[in-house]
């Protein structure tokens, strides 16, 4: 199993926490957005007690940081913008996958409509890269700054991410004569206080008519080709590093300790059948 950890660190120096989270969850791949620590400092901290992580830099994208337990030669970027890095993860003996890591503009600066438009671009970029790779074994992870139920996430021309893996297994859907592949969005299953773990990854209380309080901005989307390699029970929103809580007593993210976002952990079984 490969363990992947994503965290929007909220422009705060959190290298000790990142290290604890990575160690406590046995993370093989650490993906970070809004990092205040320099990569070299973070790498030193990650490898302080045991040298096991490599820094896997982007070329054009330097805002999303990646650290891996394997050499960066197995995790090369193939398509990047300032908000996206798509990596080909090719590990010996394991299925190659495309890992798209994204950090979308905040709702503070972009309207929901603009975010939805941007999702059409992102969806198209991923499809192009899949065409180049010759497969659709793709995971999209990151801070979308959108909820699973928003237009950009759901619409066919956007990310086309559905809440039911049985629908995702259909592979694709034709709308107006154009075919769009599905993503499965397991984050639906972690929404609200009836789910295991926190009710979302980001909390925002504001004085206007429409307020969700909890948002699921940090998401993991899985293409149908990887559904058999992903188990919902291997997905978690983390609120604890093992040494400290990342949430206040009320359960909302504690920025004084961690970040305004909570980390997301997931695992994939990429072993090639014998």
């Amino acid at each position, binding site marked *: 199993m490969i363990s992947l950890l994503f965290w929007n660190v909220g422009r705060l120096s959190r290298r000790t926490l990142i290290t604890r989270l990575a160690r406590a969850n046995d993370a093989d791949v650490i993906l970070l957005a809004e990092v205040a620590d320099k990569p070299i400092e973070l790498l030193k901290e990650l490898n302080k007690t045991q040298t096991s992580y490599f820094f896997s830099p982007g070329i054009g994208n330097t805002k999303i940081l990646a650290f891996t337990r394997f050499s960066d030669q197995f995790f090369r970027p193939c398509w990047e913008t300032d908000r996206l890095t798509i990596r080909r993860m090719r590990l010996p003996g394991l299925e190659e996958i495309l890992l798209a890591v994204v950090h979308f*503009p905040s709702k503070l600066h972009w309207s929901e409509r603009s975010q939805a438009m941007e999702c059409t671009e992102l969806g198209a970029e991923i499809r192009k890269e899949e065409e180049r790779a010759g497969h659709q074994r793709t995971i999209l992870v990151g801070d979308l700054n959108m909820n699973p139920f928003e237009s950009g996430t759901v619409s066919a021309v956007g990310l086309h991410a559905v809440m039911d893996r049985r629908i995702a297994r259909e592979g694709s859907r034709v709308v107006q004569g154009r075919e769009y592949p599905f993503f499965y969005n397991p984050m639906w299953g972690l929404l609200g206080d009836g789910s295991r773990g926190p009710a979302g990854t980001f909390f925002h209380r504001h004085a206007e008519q429409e307020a969700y309080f909890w948002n699921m901005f940090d998401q993991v989307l899985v293409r149908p080709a990887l559904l058999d390699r992903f188990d919902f029970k291997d997905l978690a929103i983390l609120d604890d590093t093992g040494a400290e809580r990342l949430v206040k007593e009320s359960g909302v993210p504690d920025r004084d300790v961690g970040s305004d976002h909570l980390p997301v952990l997931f695992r994939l079984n990429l072993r090639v059948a014998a």
Partner: protein
Amino acid sequence: MIDLWPSELSTVDQRSPLTILKEQASLLGEKTQNIVIAELEYTPPAGGWRQNNYPFKYGFLLTCPALGNYRFGLFSIAYDIEMYPVSFILDSDVAEEIIEQTHLEPGMNGELKASNEEEFIEILKRIFSSRKTARVIRALLSQAKS
């Protein structure tokens, strides 16, 4: 048969933004011995959300064949049949750098608009001269040669 068409119909006195971009794209390859090349990628309209309903949209990509055809989306332009104004959708680092240098006001989402060829060329020049562009090209050259 009477010809109702005006005689000057086929006279084209304006270069399209795409033509200018193609010229510039070919120059990058010459400067880097084709280690880093620039490609233009047409983005077909996608439903009702295409960029401000512009029918023509092209991405300007820096690509490096020696690095598994790595591609970096530096910016995109979008325009309609009238060609100008041309809307630039910029890399955020480049945008930050050049918006403070130009007299042009960024629009929604940090987009820049060139209202004529002169402004279009000015913005292109600033994008190509930006620190971010230079950094990415140098990083590609360095990795491709190692």
